[in-house]
């Protein structure tokens, strides 16, 4: 069974259609890219799946279970996590408080151990655990946002432009970590403007344009697609 299946999803803001009936799915363990220009509706799609923007119509199935009507604050217990666009940190709270908020819904005894794992993954954050997260550099903030999402113990992780505003070296670093996360068995849906990097690390991809999915398929195929090359790879 597919881990996630989105069917005919429509989302509008005050009557203006942002997502116009898209279908997409994720198999367990996949890395899937969702690319598209500014305003294509990528973030809206993720927000609707995570329940923080209400959908107009459509179906969202998690292992066959309809999660479209589950209150959004319960989705984390089903293993859904989002690294939001712009990072969405609790800026006045410390790095550690942010990370621990990721474990807010957990009741198990592994929280302390998982926190140490995050610090092992991001040694920079360990040094700054008491620092207000809003005062960190962009790359460090992205690490906190990613670490916080991992603290929820997700099965399914949505990443909304993790490379945005980062220096190339930091982009490399973040994507290295994202690969590590994926190899740990977490299924990923990666939204990126940086189409080249997104397609090079994913198995499949979707291309979105003004609220519709206009192309989909194996990432290697999309990388060779003339339309994709012209519009998103600058060739």
């Amino acid at each position: 069974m597919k881990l996630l299946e989105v069917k005919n999803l429509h989302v509008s803001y005050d009557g203006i259609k942002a997502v116009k009936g898209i279908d997409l799915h994720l198999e367990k363990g996949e890395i899937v890219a969702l690319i598209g220009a500014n305003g294509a509706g990528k973030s809206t799609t993720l927000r609707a799946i995570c329940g923080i923007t209400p959908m107009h119509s459509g179906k969202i199935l998690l292992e066959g279970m309809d999660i479209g009507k589950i209150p959004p604050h319960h989705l984390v217990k089903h293993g859904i996590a989002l690294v939001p666009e712009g990072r969405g940190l609790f800026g006045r709270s410390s790095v550690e408080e942010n990370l621990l908020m990721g474990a807010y819904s957990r009741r198990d005894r592994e929280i302390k151990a998982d926190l140490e794992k995050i610090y092992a993954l991001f040694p920079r954050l360990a040094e700054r655990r008491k620092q207000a997260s809003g005062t960190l550099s962009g790359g460090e903030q992205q690490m906190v946002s990613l670490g916080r999402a991992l603290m929820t113990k997700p099965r399914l992780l949505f990443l909304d432009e993790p490379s945005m505003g980062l220096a190339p070296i930091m982009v490399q670093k973040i994507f290295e970590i994202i690969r590590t996360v994926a190899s740990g068995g977490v299924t990923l849906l990666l939204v990126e403007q940086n189409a080249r990097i997104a397609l090079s690390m994913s198995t499949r991809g979707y291309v979105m344009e003004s609220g519709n999915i206009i192309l989909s398929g194996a990432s290697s195929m999309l990388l060779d697609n003339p339309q994709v090359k012209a519009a998103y790879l600058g060739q």
Partner: protein
Amino acid sequence: MEIFLQQLVNGVVLGSIYALVALGYTLVYGIMGLINFAHGDVVMIGAMVTLTVARLLSNSGLPGPLIVLLGLLAAVPTCMATGYLIERIAYRPLRNAPRLAPLITAIGVSILLQNLAMMIWGREYLSFPQIIPSHAFSFFGASISTTQSIIVIGSGVMMVCLSFLVKKTKLGNAMRATSQNPEVATLMGVEVNTVISLTFILGSALAAIAGMMVSAYYGIAHYDMGFMLGLKAFTAAVLGGIGNIEGAVLGGLLLGIIESMGAGYLGTLTGGVMGSNYQDVFAFFVLILVLVLRPSGLLGERVGERP
């Protein structure tokens, strides 16, 4: 010197009450950026309920302090329910409206509560029955009554508990997360509506306690007493840095002391032109000064980013 000490004592007592009320403003502002102008009227309801219970039981033969405690036991749930309903009915539908809408609604709610109180308790000043024995002890020449010390100690304990709740508990974590980014808090599993409801309920419980103190200590209650009290507590919250818990306490105490000192010395300083009846002027003078010189308040931090 004796006047100074006495006014200092009175100021700390008054300031403790301001601080309790200011905490209600600051909690709600901290979590949703809303100035709940009806908060002072919730204090009024607390005062009225305590006073009503005290009047009903004043000839029952029960000891005075027990009667006041029973009054408080009635006032706290009444105020909590009032606070909950205010948020649920008046503010929640405006959660995503422009900032001005809830502000105007807050003023409307305040007027509504005052009129309700006038219908229930009338337009007269109601006096608190003489049921509290007054002992006083002397402190370097200033006299401190038992009631005064209970107010100061009681407020102090409430503030410590609140600070613990906000900083160290799960609800506190949820409150801080909600205040900074309600959407992301939701993604972490926080039920934002519940957290906001609980914040109003918490602030209203403090308001009930403050209302009890005001009516028992000053011996009087009136349907529009919440207006001035609320405005002063709001001033205290702004003085300390609105949204900041320690700030509300500091602002409350400072404002109480400033007012009390002002009332004590204004007559002498102005050669009798202005008397202690000008006490209220100080609060607003302070408010204007803060807004001009340091709008973020004494302990105010840079306003955190909002989505």
